């Protein structure tokens, strides 16, 4: 059991940034996002026997998304961007990305966060969101276009 926990701890250390980034984008708040990520890892540990193999990160991303839906969406207030720390010296770009994400429709934001942000395939995102594949593709396409327009100042976005 202790060995399992150590191995799980290594997985958490490897994937925490991905899961926290996804959760923060969904919750639009660093502290709420970290709470969601923490709850997602705990749920993953408790339900580890149900993991069917494949990508651990995708599995925990899906759990994090459901944790978010289960109680945090209601608490997601208008972009609390002052809550996002300016780590890494790229605060301006990150803040603008968060603002642009905040301006998207909820479905577009979720689909973009899962597909572009967390790297899930459209199929995985559709499964996580409980939505038709075509809708997810459409949300990603529309969300991407809106983000590219909003972030045109950053070359190549």
């Amino acid at each position, binding site marked *: 059991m202790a060995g399992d*926990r150590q191995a799980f701890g290594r997985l958490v*250390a490897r994937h*925490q*940034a991905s899961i926290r980034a996804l959760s923060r984008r969904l919750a639009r708040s660093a502290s709420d996002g970290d709470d969601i990520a*923490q709850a997602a*890892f705990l749920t993953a540990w408790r339900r580890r026997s149900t993991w069917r193999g494949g990508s651990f990160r995708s599995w925990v991303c899906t759990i994090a998304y459901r944790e978010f839906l289960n109680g945090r969406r209601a608490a997601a207030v208008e972009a609390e961007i002052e809550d996002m720390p300016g780590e890494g010296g*790229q605060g301006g770009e990150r803040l603008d990305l968060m603002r642009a994400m905040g301006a998207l429709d909820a479905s577009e934001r979720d689909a973009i966060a899962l597909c*572009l*942000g967390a790297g899930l395939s459209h199929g995985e995102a559709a499964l996580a969101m409980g939505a038709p594949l075509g809708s997810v593709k459409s949300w990603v396409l529309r969300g991407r276009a809106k983000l590219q327009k909003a972030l045109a100042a950053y070359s190549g*976005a």
Partner: protein
Amino acid sequence: MSQQPEDGLERMFAADEAAIRDDGFTQRVVEQVERADKGVLWRRTAIYGAGLAGAGFAVGGIFEMAPHLPKMSGWFDGVVSAVSTAGVEDAVQNASDATQLAIVAVLAGVTFLVAAVTLQNR
């Protein structure tokens, strides 16, 4: 992100993710996992204990009632003769007291087992 960013947006997402430092997050998760495991241990002990106690009462109840139950050999002979003379319906009626007790005990055990397995996986 393990993949190479394909365009400016994905580069921005990757940079956003790369800027997130661990800052004790992993340690907090591992501590929560340890606490959760301790909780599961207590719950499992309580459930298995209750299950054992229930099974004990069930077995004790059988022994307690044994003197009042028909002897199995006589009961079996009774069933055979009842089947041959009075038909299957009457035989089932005669056998019901003993079999009901056994069925209830087995159901109680299965219920405890299912509850324990379900709760420990939560």
